[in-house]
């Protein structure tokens, strides 16, 4: 059944689009930062789903860790795990810098709503 085979990919795309909507439709900067994190999580889901392995006779793959120096059963692919580990830590770093910039904006403008900031800029320019 194709739906079940692609379910993870479609849900990953749904989560990505929810995050995308949050970034472009919400005016609060902090909301936009949280929604960007949601978007990134959807991408992680997409990658890690690709690494799941199930042998042809139906044996499910196990976590890619050798126990007792013996290989027990077919392993899931560890490469997407490695790449997404890096990506998760980078995503929290960017969230930290985004929050620092938002706090600076609050100190300077007194607000973190996008439309009020743009109006203040226009007032300063004119």
């Amino acid at each position: 059944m194709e739906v079940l085979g692609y379910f993870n990919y479609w849900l990953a795309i749904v989560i990505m689009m929810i995050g995308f909507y949050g970034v472009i439709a919400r005016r609060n900067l902090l909301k936009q930062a949280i929604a960007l994190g949601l978007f990134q999580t959807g991408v992680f889901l997409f990658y890690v789903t690709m690494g799941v392995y199930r042998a042809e006779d139906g044996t499910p793959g196990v976590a890619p860790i050798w126990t007792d120096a013996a290989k027990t059963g077919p392993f899931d692919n560890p490469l997407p795990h490695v790449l997404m580990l890096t990506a998760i830590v980078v995503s929290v770093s960017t969230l930290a810098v985004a929050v620092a910039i938002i706090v600076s904006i609050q100190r300077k403008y007194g607000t973190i709503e996008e439309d009020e900031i743009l109006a203040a800029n226009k007032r300063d320019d004119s």
Partner: protein
Amino acid sequence: MSDAPKSASPAPSGPDAGAQMSQQTLIRVVAKMTIPFILAFGFYVILHGELGPGGGFQGGVILAAAFILYGLVFGADELRRRIPPPFIDACMALGALFYAGVGLASLLAGGNFLDYGMLAPEHAGDMEAKGMSLVEYGVGLTVASVMVTIYLMISERRSTLRPGEKAQGL
């Protein structure tokens, strides 16, 4: 415990919030009891990164969680007094420097950059595993310091120093 029953009062607010939280006996005692275990678990996760799930990033975040718990319960100023901020700055840089230093040492020993086996060519297999552990220590140190720095930076109450006030660093 000489704490008055005022710890049963409603949620603290105002400039004394930090002081009142440290007077709540339950929170203080539980925090003091659990912080050593959190630190030990953090070190365990870093050291056993090669034998099970774990590694530098996860262990570093858990180590930082112990310090952040201390800062939440006893006040960020108390945390700054216990661990001088210049020391945390130095740890941030030393972790990344250590990682690159291991790679550079491999380069100087005759191999490629980050080729851990060349650090001890007669036991190359063991040295590769040890090199991977060393590198994870560096990563754990940097991650823990940065997370504590993040907490200290966002827990400040004033954005400027008044005239006459001394900068405490960080």
